């Protein structure tokens, strides 16, 4: 029995003349992601993508999971393939449904006939197949209003497909169609979620992580790698750039007043990230900030940090509550990793009473007490470590 995955496109179908390029990117993404599982043919026709495994023993469970995480897909179903004649459809359906029918007691049949040359009309297909299934599975009954399961038969160009339900896809638009952006990732709960959300809108991700050994440990770095690996199940490949940040943090501590530590540190982070972003062809920065969550995420603080860079800064979590963010982080499976208790760059040297309403001018003049700032930034950017996730 041959199984395939039928994919219905999401928002892409609303696009105009450039729709083809969105479709092509989606196909390319699907092919790349599926290549890690096995050999597949991925084809698009009639606004539907079919994913066909080259060999019958391919792990379709894994393929389905993989597809469910690719952006640009509204819904999909796992179906089996039958020849386009009634006998073959009946026979295949019995084989395919044996296991599913073990779990339920009522069903109904629905038919979609996009190939109008098929000699049976949709209601006739339902009757024929429904009757046949009843005969073969005498313990089952038909319930057209509230069935435990709906068996769908789709008659399309090349074959007939039988499936038992439509699953929700990851939504969004294909990664890569929106350009590239650079996400600042510490290891907490928020930044992986922010990465996920922007990838969902089609951005390809580069990640910047600030490491301050020995104040932060190798475990903290590995934690970020693991987080990005989880995000990459949705976003595809991520380039992770680790910036040595110890010197700058020590310098801030040495030269600046305590209540400005965090805000000045964040300004440095923005400045360095912008430089790295430009080197890597990124046009925007992404952060996991949520308004008012902590002292450095107040509106005044954001005004100060934004003035350190000249790039749009995307903050997809800006209007979200913490519990909403946690919910998403559980959904994308990053929560359990995020809560591992390792020091990260943001928790090193945190002031007891940080400024919640800093004034840009004051912050800048405080920051200017660091004389060799430019040199420090240059050094940091030059000594980054690159890891491909």
């Amino acid at each position, binding site marked *: 029995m041959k199984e395939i995955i039928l994919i219905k496109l999401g928002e892409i179908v609303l696009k105009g003349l450039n729709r083809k390029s969105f479709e092509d990117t989606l196909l390319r993404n699907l092919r790349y992601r599926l290549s890690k599982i096995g050999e597949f043919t991925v084809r698009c026709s009639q606004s539907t993508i079919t994913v066909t495994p080259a060999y019958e023993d391919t*792990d379709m*469970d894994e393929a389905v999971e993989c597809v469910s995480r690719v952006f640009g897909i509204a819904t999909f179903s796992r179906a089996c393939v039958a020849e386009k004649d009634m006998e073959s459809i009946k026979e295949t359906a019995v084989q395919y449904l044996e*296991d599913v029918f*073990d779990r339920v007691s009522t069903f109904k049949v629905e038919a979609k006939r996009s190939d109008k040359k098929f000699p049976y009309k949709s209601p006739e297909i339902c009757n024929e197949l429904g009757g046949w299934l009843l005969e073969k599975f005498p313990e089952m009954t038909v319930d057209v209003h509230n069935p435990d399961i709906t068996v769908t038969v789709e008659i399309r160009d090349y074959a007939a497909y039988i499936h038992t339900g439509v699953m929700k896809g990851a939504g969004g638009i294909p990664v890569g169609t929106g350009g590239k952006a650079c996400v600042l990732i510490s290891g907490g709960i928020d930044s992986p979620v922010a990465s996920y959300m922007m990838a969902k809108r089609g951005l390809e991700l580069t990640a910047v992580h600030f490491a301050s050994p020995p104040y932060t*440990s*190798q475990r903290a770095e590995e934690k970020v790698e693991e987080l990005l690996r989880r995000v990459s199940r949705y976003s595809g490949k991520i380039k992770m750039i680790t910036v040595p940040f110890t010197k700058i943090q020590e310098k801030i501590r040495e030269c600046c007043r305590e209540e400005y530590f965090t805000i000045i540190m964040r300004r440095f982070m923005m400045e360095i990230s912008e430089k790295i972003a430009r080197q890597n062809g990124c046009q925007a920065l992404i952060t996991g900030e949520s308004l008012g969550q902590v002292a450095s995420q107040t509106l005044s603080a954001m005004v100060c940090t934004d003035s350190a860079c000249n790039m749009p800064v995307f903050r997809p979590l800006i209007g979200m509550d913490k519990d909403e963010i946690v919910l998403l982080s559980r959904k994308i499976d990053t929560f359990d990793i995020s809560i591992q208790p390792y020091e990260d760059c943001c928790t090193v040297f945190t002031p007891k009473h940080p400024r919640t309403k800093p004034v840009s001018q004051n912050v800048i003049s405080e920051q200017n007490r660091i004389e060799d700032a430019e040199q420090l930034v240059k050094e940091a950017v030059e000594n980054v470590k690159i890891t491909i996730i």
Partner: protein
Amino acid sequence: MREIYLDNSATTKTCAKAAEKALEIMTEKYGNPSSLHSKGLEAQHELEKVRKLCADMLSAEKEEIYFTSGGTEGNNTAVFGAASAMKRRGNKIVTSSIEHSSILEAMKQLEKEGFEVVYLSPKANGKIDIEDLKNTIDRHTILVSIMAVNNEIGSVNPVEKIKNIIEKNHSPALFHIDAVQMFGKMPIKAKKLGADMITASSHKIHGPKGAGLLYIKKGTRVIPLHYGGEQEKKIRPGTECLPALCGMGAAIEELPDMSEEWEIISSLNKYCRSQLMQIENICINSSEDCLPYILNFSVKGIRSETMLHFLADKGIYVSSGSACAKGKKSHVLTAMGFDNVVADSALRVSFSRYNSYEDVDELVNALTKANNTLARIK
């Protein structure tokens, strides 16, 4: 005297790679995986590598693997842990009468604590009947624990059907599979099986003793039996037994291709069956569709223990049933309905990749000799 080890379901010889790995961990990478320093990190890396290997064996996620000290601890954690997590939702537990003692004894204890335990009897072929499961699992059932492969006769239970029955009967039950005898011998796909928990052990697959794993499906609540540190997400606190666990990892890496080994062991099993049939008074208790690694038979009239010692004198090691039962009459054969003559004289040979046709020949020679010389019970 050449040693012929045919008791691989009791335990196996630790393979060289596993022993080397254990030594390396003990003498070089001896850090505590929970230590913050890099020595600890190195040990943690080793541990996580093993976790990934185990997860791949079950087509599961790394986070779903919890290391244990072996099959008994895995089974106990699963049974007690699930029973106490689920006790508000019902009182009934379904298992079989031919489970390993680490399940049966745990069940007995749960009965004392007030749970209703239903022990399903196997059919004559040693398998649990699907119809029995359908009629027993109900809305009050909170746990179903069935072994994948029976350790004494090798019968393979239809565990892949059980999750469907639980769903169809609207039961909240968690589903546990004791897969100790199946792990490494047949492919196990946790998700496809619909299992909430799966137990496996290292020393049945040429890994060291004292290591094993419990798969717990993400989101399944299990109350731990021990309390202490944060290891294994508090399900199994205490410093991990790194040498044994990493040995298990090495043993997994050393496993030959499963389907190829299956073919080899199957033909060895077939050969053994045909040779045994030449001996008088013999009957074979494992049906043809049993796991080929296990072959149970009886030389009628000669007590298991007598025969076992006779063979051991010749350097041939077999078992009279389960090593964990220490010579008690087999509850498995009794439950399958074999008469006393058969049960009292039952022997189990269990193969591994290190066995050969010559081993079988020597066994058959020795059995023939014993059959002709040993005094029979009346």
